[in-house]
């Protein structure tokens, strides 16, 4: 049983709670679990020092972790980590770093794992139309989808060692165009509310934004909405040619549920659909379906949310 090394996921400079899920995933593979925290300040490792089931925490300190250069991330991590099977969270940046690290160590990589049975790892293929189980012989690098494993608890007091590392940075950021709005991106959100052509106009997306603000959700869109209305940017598109998302809750409003849209969101933990057509395919995938126009349903939805959470 080889060592398992969990790389803590960083979101806006702090350790993302899904890191506890990675520890569970590592335990499912077996072996001793070390958590490595890429950080600019070793105190960032405090977030994981209480995790149960962890034998060691290594805070790897480097300026490269303030940026997005995956080469720098991989070289800094590599220099500070023992050998073993390495687990990352399957986010866009971490998958990139994971690929680099695997290549650097001459290992193979298995991305987007959703189930683990020892050395057998299962990931969705063909945009979720099937699953593939692979057997891993020896060490590998693995990325694990969020919201699939339940996280380990905390209450332990793990030793934290600090390692200074430098990374080999290859790219240079020239400019960052901030998002037009301060809205969450669909690829970062735990709850997403998306609108389709059934919203009737881009202005009506303000009703989705109001719900999103109440529950801390991101606003997404179908391709029909993105293609029809200039005001709805492609960055909001969920689906086969948009983003693949895996939130706890996905709310589809005025979206028919075409196969290409499903490809991007079918693995969401819970799906709510609001659609006036009872035969819309989205209802076959919804945990909770509301057959109604959004004009009727959304105000009620919004009021109920506000009184529950407000």
């Amino acid at each position: 049983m080889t060592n398992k090394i969990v790389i803590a996921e960083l979101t806006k400079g702090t350790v993302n709670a899904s890191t506890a899920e990675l520890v569970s995933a590592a335990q499912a593979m077996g072996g001793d679990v070390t958590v490595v925290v890429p950080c600019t300040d070793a105190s960032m490792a405090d977030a994981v020092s209480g995790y149960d089931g962890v034998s060691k925490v290594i805070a790897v300190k480097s300026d490269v972790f303030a940026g997005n250069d995956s080469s720098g991330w991989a070289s800094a991590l590599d220099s500070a980590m023992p050998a073993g099977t390495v687990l990352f969270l399957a986010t866009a940046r971490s998958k990139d770093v994971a690929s680099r690290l695997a290549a650097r160590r001459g290992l193979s990589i298995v991305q987007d794992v959703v189930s683990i049975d020892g050395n057998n790892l299962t990931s969705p293929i063909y945009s979720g139309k099937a699953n593939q189980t692979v057997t891993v012989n020896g060490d590998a690098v693995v990325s694990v989808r969020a919201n699939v494993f339940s996280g380990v608890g905390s209450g332990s007091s793990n030793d934290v060692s600090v390692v200074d590392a430098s990374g080999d940075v290859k790219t240079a950021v020239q400019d960052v165009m901030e998002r037009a709005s301060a809205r969450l991106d669909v690829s970062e959100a735990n709850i997403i509310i998306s609108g389709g052509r059934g919203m009737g106009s881009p202005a009506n997306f303000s009703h989705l934004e109001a719900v999103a603000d109440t529950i801390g959700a991101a606003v997404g869109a179908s391709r029909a909405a993105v293609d029809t209305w200039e005001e709805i940017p492609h960055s909001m598109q969920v689906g086969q040619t948009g983003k693949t998302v895996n939130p706890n809750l996905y709310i589809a409003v005025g979206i028919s549920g075409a196969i290409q849209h499903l490809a991007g969101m079918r693995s969401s933990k819970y799906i709510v659909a609001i659609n006036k057509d009872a035969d819309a395919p989205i209802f076959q995938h919804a945990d909770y379906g509301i057959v109604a126009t959004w004009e009727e349903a959304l105000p009620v939805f919004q009021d109920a949310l506000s009184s529950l959470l407000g």
Partner: protein
Amino acid sequence: MNRTLLGDLIEMSTIIVLVKQVPDTNAKIAVQGGRVDLSTVKMEMSPYDGFAIETALRHKEATGGTVTALTVGAAGTEKILKDAKAMGVDNIVRVWDDSWSDLDSNALQSVLKESIESLGGTAVYCGKSAADTGAGSTGPGLAERLGWANASNVIGAEFGDAVTVSMPVEAGVAKVSVPLPAVISCDKGDFKPRKANVKGIMMAKKAQVELMTASAPASTVVVASHSMPAAKPAGKTFEGGSSASQVVQLLRDEANVL
């Protein structure tokens, strides 16, 4: 043609674009005996590879040089190379050895590295992820093996001594200068893949696929089985807008997501 020699004589960009054959993304997928059955499924070029070809062609149009489309695959994968040729790439190359079957990422990237080095590549474009695996491992992994820079999920590019790419980051969209040589993985973005014209299609018919081989380490990740995703338990459906408050209650009490 001896490309290494050509590279020595004239210094110009040797742009390589990676293309992969995958099942038609509209096709229904069936599993038979623990394996996906693709026998009746039409195969096509992975959609993001079209964006990679478009970006590679624009690179050549801006700086000069040649574009070579390359796939690692058995003989049946040549059609996607012809499709790339019809869009306007200069050369088409297939890399294979009949002793190979499923290459894991380590084996595939080793083969790609060796092939790209022997072609003298100076910039490599690929899809952000292939429509079969959805992995997104090839671009960054290959860059690491070559010792090159990389950028992923690229949605726009300007070409010069370096390539300045646009890519989404936490804070928004970043413009990032990527020094060459580099591997750039392309998402759907500013560039729409051009359609092949009649001349392109005629040229593609006549074009020769160059064959290459390379050495591949043994694969340590082996496909064990395929399965259909577990069917979701039937959901609950409610009629009328007023039911939305009931759904909110269920999201709190039953699903536990609020």
